[in-house]
């Protein structure tokens, strides 16, 4: 049976964000082991047993499912999530921070007067069983620990790549698969104006956006590597290793890279196997976006740059000297 005070995870609006949802379920499941709370997952759409099983494999104890075959927009989904919260009174709700679900989260926070922490980088449960959210504060370069007050419900949104997806092997396959069919009263969904919006014209974007999360090696340009010659070298090296070139906020602000390639608090979170920061100083707002990289290499002429404290390998040298050396090395390898 479903108990109150559970951890509710809200599924992304479409299948494309399932990986992201599963990362959050894995984190919720970790918290549930510690607190003995159940992990609920709210999903709307078409019935898909394989998909649901993937969710339960990551640690969802129960799936609350609203079968709705038409397209679902922000308003309809918010109505569904509100209904689920009213019915099951969870203690915390976690949302994937996709563009549409972020709006859903904000709407729910107004509805229930519940605190909402945006872009959490960690969630912990203290000895009093109270949940705390961590987030990078932009204005003063610190990590803030945030707690919900004056409300029985606290909520947070989580960016993609913030937590690692984990799957648990189940001893008994049938035991843990629980699904509740939720019947939404369609009269409740009065706010569907957004969803019935008229699309009057489509215009395809010329270039397909590269997803920086698909690369296992990432080269990051910082303000210390903004010269065009330096950038050209970075691209040459990156190409040789099939790496993606991304940038810090400063570099995006200076129009060197497109916003889609920004890593950090106001950009994307990444977790590649290897991250190489070139001329990156390592403000907290950037570190939160790359801290889950498996191996961090930082190149900076300043030994006191904050990123040096966070790197597995900190190379104190001029970025250009480093790049020249690595390109030379590449040539000698290729001629072998």
């Amino acid at each position, binding site marked *: 049976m479903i108990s109150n005070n559970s951890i509710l995870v809200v599924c992304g609006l479409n299948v*494309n964000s399932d990986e992201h949802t599963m990362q959050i379920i894995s984190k919720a499941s970790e918290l549930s082991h510690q607190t003995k709370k159940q992990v609920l997952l709210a999903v709307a759409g078409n019935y898909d047993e394989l998909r649901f099983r993937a969710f339960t494999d990551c640690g969802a104890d129960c799936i609350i499912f609203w079968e709705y075959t038409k397209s679902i927009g*922000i308003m309809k989904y918010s109505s569904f999530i509100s209904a689920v919260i009213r019915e099951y009174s969870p203690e915390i709700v976690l949302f994937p921070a996709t*563009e549409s679900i*972020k709006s*859903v*989260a*904000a*709407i729910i*926070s*107004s509805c229930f007067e*519940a*605190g*909402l*922490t*945006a*872009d959490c980088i960690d969630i912990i449960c203290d000895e009093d069983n109270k949940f705390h959210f961590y987030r990078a504060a*932009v*204005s003063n*370069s*610190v*990590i*803030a*620990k*945030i*707690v*919900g*007050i004056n409300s029985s419900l*606290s909520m947070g949104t989580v960016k993609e790549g913030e937590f690692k997806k984990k799957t648990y092997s189940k001893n008994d396959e049938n035991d843990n698969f629980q699904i509740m069919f939720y019947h939404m009263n369609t009269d409740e969904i009065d*706010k569907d104006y957004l969803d019935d*919006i008229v*699309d*009057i*014209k*489509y*215009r*395809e974007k010329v270039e*397909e*956006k590269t997803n920086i999360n698909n690369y296992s*090696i990432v080269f990051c340009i910082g303000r210390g590597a903004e010269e065009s010659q330096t950038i050209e070298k970075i691209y040459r090296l990156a190409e040789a290793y099939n790496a993606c070139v991304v940038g810090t906020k400063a570099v995006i*602000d200076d129009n060197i890279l497109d916003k889609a390639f920004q890593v950090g608090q*106001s950009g994307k979170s990444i977790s590649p196997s290897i991250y190489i920061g070139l001329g990156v100083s390592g403000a*907290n707002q950037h*570190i939160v976006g790359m801290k889950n990289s498996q191996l*961090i290499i930082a190149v900076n002429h300043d030994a006191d740059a*904050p990123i*040096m*404290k*966070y*790197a*597995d*390998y*900190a190379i*104190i*040298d001029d970025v250009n*000297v480093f790049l020249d*050396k*690595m390109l*030379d*090395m590449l040539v000698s*390898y290729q001629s072998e």
Partner: protein
Amino acid sequence: MECTYARLVICIKPVKSSLMGKNSNNLEDEFRINPYELKILKEIIALKKISKLPFILTCVSMGTKSSESVLRRALAMGADEAVLISDSSFAGSDTVATSYILSKAIQKLENVKFIICGSRSIDGETGQVPAALSERIRYALYTEVTKICSFNENNVVFLKDDENKKVLHKGELPAVISYNGFQINDETVSLMALKRAKKKEIFIMDKDDLNIDVSRCGMTGSKTKVSEVRSSFTKISGEQFFGISDETAHFLTDILRGVHHD
């Protein structure tokens, strides 16, 4: 405030000038217009000039008296009126409290058809206020809007980013739009425009004007609280190399090639 014309409201977040980095050219002011709102404000003013639509462009900010300079600038750029929501009991509001206060101000301003907010501020970065506000005043919500093409009393036509394509939409009013686009550099406004703006009145609304429940504002009304701050991230296991030697370059190249050393 009475108004025979329809109002279009742009909610402007005043952000600290120091956050704007090296592109700042107006350093004497403590606060600046959040870059997201700056861009849309400029576009709406241009649109207003072309379309000659009879609507009032009202800029609304919430903050201390020193954020008046932000509204003054908006007036100089071409906004019709400016409202500063300011009360000591509003300080420290989180998004739940902020959206409540803003909703009260919107209700106070009459005939508001259309509200535009930047999709986020460069200091708070939560991006929650537009949606939270739309829920409180029960307006439609259009998000990820990258361009407003036209509008009239009943509809708005806008471009919206939808994964990999831009889609042109037509939506009904009243609505809240969350606008995603930004510009860092300030608009240059003429001295004359600034002078004219200085003569205009900035309407101040405090807790009494808004007839507001103070227990739902500021720190008391917030649903989140910062319980602790940590200065930065550190990892102790790191290894430092002074200068890039052949040996180090070899070692790193091997790592990149997937040949791992033990």
